[in-house]
């Protein structure tokens, strides 16, 4: 029997075509599904088997597809997500009916909120049993509808090839998102001929890629006139692969750039135009600049409440240009004076052609003052291990080049504040849904997509705890991922809110942790514990040389807080913690 474990090169060099007969030859649904995936360019998949997907899994036995089995379907979905975010390709996950499909929900929701292309194939009970509460039956299309861009059940094998083609097209175009294809077991064994050229039938799916040319010239004109502009960029720029175009625009027109959590990496933070992240835990200089700007150029961003703070006062004196591929994002939260619907790459290219350089001396001087007065900082003199220090060290020792993933909480915010990202697809984090447990499996997916990259999951102790079983997956496939746990013992972000808004009543936000380095070792990974500040660089260096998955458990300052902070419902310029930043400047 073939072993599933670590066969990284098993597909190399083989023809990506399964044994296929002439077009008219009858093939099973399972065979067609696998062939259709291969024809979509799929060479890597994640998934977990079960009763009603066995025909499909049987076809995978000798298919030229690298297959990664997670320990839990949620982990698999996050892996497919991390794979998609790192590579720009569609992530593919397969699960069985009922419990398998239900376990995908968090992963689908995470991908949905952050517009990540995933195709999930779920097994389903026989079509004649559907609706009868059959064993392991769940209404998968019903359950996943709100967390997918599209989903459908295939009840006739003749529709299968077309539906799979449509699934990939829908997942990866426009504003991307997850798509579920529910595949009853009898459809997997029914036979029909396979036509790879089958036409899609999507009368309701129209894509607008080119922005309206008049809107674009109006936007260019507004940029050229503006004295105090700010570019506000989100994940859409990363998704559109428009990093180069963004850079060209900011350089040519001379514009400061701030990024959302998901936008980080779209503009090199080492460049002088970068204002780093804005919003609830954004930099003071980004938030002040947005508050005072006369023109806000939003690109692929959706004015999320964590970004805008109080909507009424958000960029209140600014004209707003909103560039987005999703018309529904425009004017949802904030009025747009110049909406431009289309692909960011196309629109930015057009804008670059039409904008002029402008010095904006006063504006940049003001920004420089804010940067000088309120730089990001923390108590560097502390003898305890400050989590910010660890992250700065990780950044330095990886040359700022690593792919970074995170869980959700304080460590996620510190990572966004203290790792300086250089390029798109370098930062992988659950922004919209805020899914704890995303860090480790998404790192696995990213490492599979980018085998030569250094991939570091900067995780929270409790986020890590949610999906740490996937460490064994990383061991099985010999993935050299790194995990840096910012172990503060607390659900730190919850504790911070309780400290600030609930009178320090730390209600249920503490969990007794296991010894994570021992857990790592038990799972076959390398484990390191760091309790002294002086040991931090050494441990990171050792971690970076490991060929096997490596977990470093940093015992950090337990009650450190994330600053600055715009309390919920406050305006962006009403940040707390500025005196602290000022004192550390």
């Amino acid at each position: 029997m073939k072993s599933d474990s670590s066969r990284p090169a098993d597909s190399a060099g083989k023809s990506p075509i399964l044994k296929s007969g002439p077009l008219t030859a009858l093939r099973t649904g399972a065979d067609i599904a696998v062939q259709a995936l291969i024809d979509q360019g799929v060479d890597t998949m994640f998934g977990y088997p079960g009763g009603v997907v066995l025909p499909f899994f049987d076809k995978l036995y000798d298919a030229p597809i690298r297959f990664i089995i997670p320990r839990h379907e949620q982990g698999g979905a996050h892996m497919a997500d991390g794979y998609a975010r790192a590579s720009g390709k569609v992530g593919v996950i397969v699960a069985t009916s009922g419990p398998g499909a239900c376990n995908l929900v968090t992963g689908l929701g995470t991908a949905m909120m952050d517009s990540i292309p995933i195709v999930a194939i779920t097994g389903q009970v026989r079509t004649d049993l559907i609706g009868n509460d059959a064993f392991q039956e769940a209404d998968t299309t019903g359950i996943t509808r709100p967390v997918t861009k599209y989903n459908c059940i295939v009840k006739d094998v003749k529709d299968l090839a077309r539906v799979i083609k449509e699934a990939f097209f829908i997942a990866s175009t426009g504003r991307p998102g997850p798509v579920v294809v529910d595949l009853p077991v009898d459809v997997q064994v029914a036979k029909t001929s396979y036509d790879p050229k089958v036409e899609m039938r999507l009368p309701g799916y129209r894509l607008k890629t080119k922005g309206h040319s008049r809107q674009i010239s109006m936007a260019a004109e507004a940029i050229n006139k503006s004295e105090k502009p700010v570019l506000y960029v989100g994940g859409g720029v990363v998704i559109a692969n428009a990093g180069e175009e963004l850079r060209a625009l900011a350089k040519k027109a001379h514009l400061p750039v701030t990024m959302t959590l998901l936008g980080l990496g779209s503009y090199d933070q080492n460049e002088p135009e970068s204002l780093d992240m804005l919003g609830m835990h954004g930099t003071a200089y980004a938030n002040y600049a947005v508050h005072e700007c006369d023109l806000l150029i939003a690109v692929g961003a959706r004015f999320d409440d964590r970004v805008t703070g109080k909507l009424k006062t958000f960029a209140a004196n600014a004209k707003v240009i909103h560039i987005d591929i999703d018309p529904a994002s425009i004017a949802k939260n904030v009025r747009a004076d110049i909406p431009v619907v289309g692909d960011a790459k196309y629109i930015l290219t057009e804008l670059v052609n039409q904008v002029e350089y402008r010095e904006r001396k006063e504006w940049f001087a003001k920004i420089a003052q804010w940067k000088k007065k309120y730089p990001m900082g923390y108590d560097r003199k502390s003898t305890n291990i400050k989590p910010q220090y660890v992250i700065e060290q990780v950044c330095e020792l990886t040359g700022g080049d690593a792919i970074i993933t995170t869980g959700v909480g304080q460590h996620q915010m510190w990572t966004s504040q203290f790792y300086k990202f250089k390029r798109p697809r370098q930062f992988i984090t659950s922004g919209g849904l805020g899914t704890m447990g995303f860090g480790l499996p998404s790192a696995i997916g990213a490492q599979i997509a980018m085998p030569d990259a250094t991939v570091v999951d900067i995780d929270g102790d409790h986020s890590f705890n949610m999906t740490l079983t996937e460490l064994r997956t990383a061991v099985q496939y010999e993935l050299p991922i790194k995990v840096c746990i910012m172990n503060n013992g607390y659900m730190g972000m919850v504790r911070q809110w309780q400290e600030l808004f609930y009178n320090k009543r730390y209600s249920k936000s503490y969990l007794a942790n296991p010894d994570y380095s021992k857990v790592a070792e038990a799972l076959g990974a390398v484990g390191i514990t760091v309790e002294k500040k002086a040991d931090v660089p050494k441990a990171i260096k050792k971690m970076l040389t490991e060929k096997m998955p490596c977990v470093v458990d940093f015992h950090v300052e337990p009650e450190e807080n994330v600053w600055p902070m715009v309390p919920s419902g406050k305006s962006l310029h009403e940040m707390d913690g500025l005196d602290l930043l000022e004192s550390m400047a």
Partner: protein
Amino acid sequence: MKHIISALVENKPGVLAHVSGMFAARAFNIDSLVVGRTEDPQLSRMTIVVVGDDRVLEQVRKQLAKIIPVVKVQDFAGQAVVARDLMLITFAAPAEKRPEILALIETFKGNVVDIGQKTIMVEISGPEEKIEAFIEMCRPYGIKNVARTGTIAMPRQEKTAGGQQETTNED
């Protein structure tokens, strides 16, 4: 303000759930939602009456259009449309009051579709206000049962406008 939204959708399972689920998830208020077949077996038409301000309605239209099996979305606000509701209503009709009741039905251009010892069932169609007015008129007799279809609507051709009672969905 009430808007009549007309959406042409693919005639596939799950589309109604998708549309109604979206309305619920985004906390939009539906007054009525009607689905019916069209001349094209591949397409159905949904007529949805929604209450909200302009900003809400803009989101409603965009979020509807975003649903993949939704092919086309029209908002009839500000347009001349014919909007109709169909109702079946059963109410008490004692023998001594039947003449006045039949006169009332006549005035509203309703049809008596069933008649019993004590009650009468009437079919009546028209703009929503007419239906509501009829319900009010029936109330004193004692209403037993009401079933309404909800609004369906179609824009008028400019040239042939007139004749019938004009209804825009502002009223």
